[in-house]
């Protein structure tokens, strides 16, 4: 009878994905520790993992918890900040303009524009600085390839909320990092927008006969 593969093949199949996720969620400085903690903990629990379990989702779940541990440990070492980075803002769709004096972006949906979110134009850095849930949803979906149902199980909440958090995160990355994604340039633009006219007409003149 053939059972679970040797743990070595788990490390070779998923090691780089988990490292990517740890780097996205924590930044490069703490990613190594989170990776090590994740795989040591996974190795210990591996014999009890059901044979049909989704190994990648299982690893990302462990990495998620280890990243929280690492973040908390770092927070304990650091000077306390006014606002905990994981606190969602009460109004999740809050618009910008209220963002105070250069404070780091905190809760969900706070608009980063004008906040200098991406000083160095580095997409990896921009992702690391997204609000926690958006960052996690983006990392687990776009870097680890997990479906939103699995992400919801990790983050709590519904699959739809996870999908929305990822979409908000992507939208924010796109605003703060316009260089990312060649598709942006390829997106159709109406002449109205390009010339800064107040509103694009509902029906364009293209193809419309007089």
């Amino acid at each position, binding site marked *: *009878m*053939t*059972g*679970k*593969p*040797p*743990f*070595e093949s788990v*490390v070779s199949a998923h*090691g*780089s994905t988990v*490292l*990517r996720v740890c*780097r*996205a969620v924590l930044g490069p400085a703490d990613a*190594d520790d989170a*990776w*090590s903690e994740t*795989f*040591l903990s996974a*190795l*210990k629990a*591996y*014999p009890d993992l059901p044979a049909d379990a989704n190994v990648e989702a299982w690893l990302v779940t462990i990495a998620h918890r280890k990243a929280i541990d690492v973040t908390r440990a770092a927070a304990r070492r650091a000077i306390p900040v006014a606002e905990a980075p994981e606190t969602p803002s009460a109004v999740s769709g809050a618009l910008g303009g209220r963002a105070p004096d250069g404070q780091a972006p905190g809760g969900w949906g706070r608009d980063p524009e004008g906040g200098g979110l991406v000083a160095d134009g*580095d*997409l*990896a850095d921009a*992702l690391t600085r997204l609000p926690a849930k958006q960052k996690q949803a*983006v990392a687990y979906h*776009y*870097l680890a390839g997990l479906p939103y149902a699995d992400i919801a199980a990790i983050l709590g909440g519904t699959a739809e909320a996870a999908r929305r958090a990822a979409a908000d995160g*992507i*939208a924010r*990355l*796109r605003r703060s990092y316009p260089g*990312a*994604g*060649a*598709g*942006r340039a*390829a*997106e159709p633009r109406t002449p109205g927008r390009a010339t800064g006219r107040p509103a694009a007409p509902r029906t364009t003149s293209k193809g419309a006969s007089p």
Partner: protein
Amino acid sequence: MNADDMAGALAQAFPDHPDQLSLLHARLAAAAQQDGVLDVAYRVIDSPVGPLLLAATEQGLIRVAFALEGHDAVLQSLADKVSPRILSAPGRLDAAAREIDEYFAGRRHTFGLPLDWRLSAGFRRTVLGHLPEIGYGHTASYTAVAQLAGSPKAVRAVGTACATNPLPVVVPCHRVVRADGSMGGYRGGPEAKRALLTLEEAAA
């Protein structure tokens, strides 16, 4: 909005770090060893009879495997029979690798490694335990080994014991040959058996 483009850009923003990963892998193996959860460590060494897989538990060397057996299949069988907590962790196999190197250089005639006999039981285990009594550079027939093991009629069972030896080279089943002097089968193939016998003849 094109999410695929963003996915591509993100993948590029987080490239693979193979060097960092091997470092982290080594760190994981060391931590696992320290915490007592590295149930099976393995490494692959080069030898004159092809790459050899060496695997060890905390008790000792548990498996030596020729490429012919399929190293992946052997590791899977270790996962099934011993534990799936298996990592490539060369450190635990340093002594085994050194002794086997010395053996192939003709400088070592007996092995002093701690062995984990878990993969062999009963009469097979008894037979294998007698094999080191056949001295370096010598051979014995299956019949003679059956007598050594105390069951003169169990010639066929001796053949099975040798064919399923989990520790070839180190436990010298290659020294067991047919009564007519022909070699008989071998887990690593007939060429490997001939190579080992030729080596021992030359270095004895």
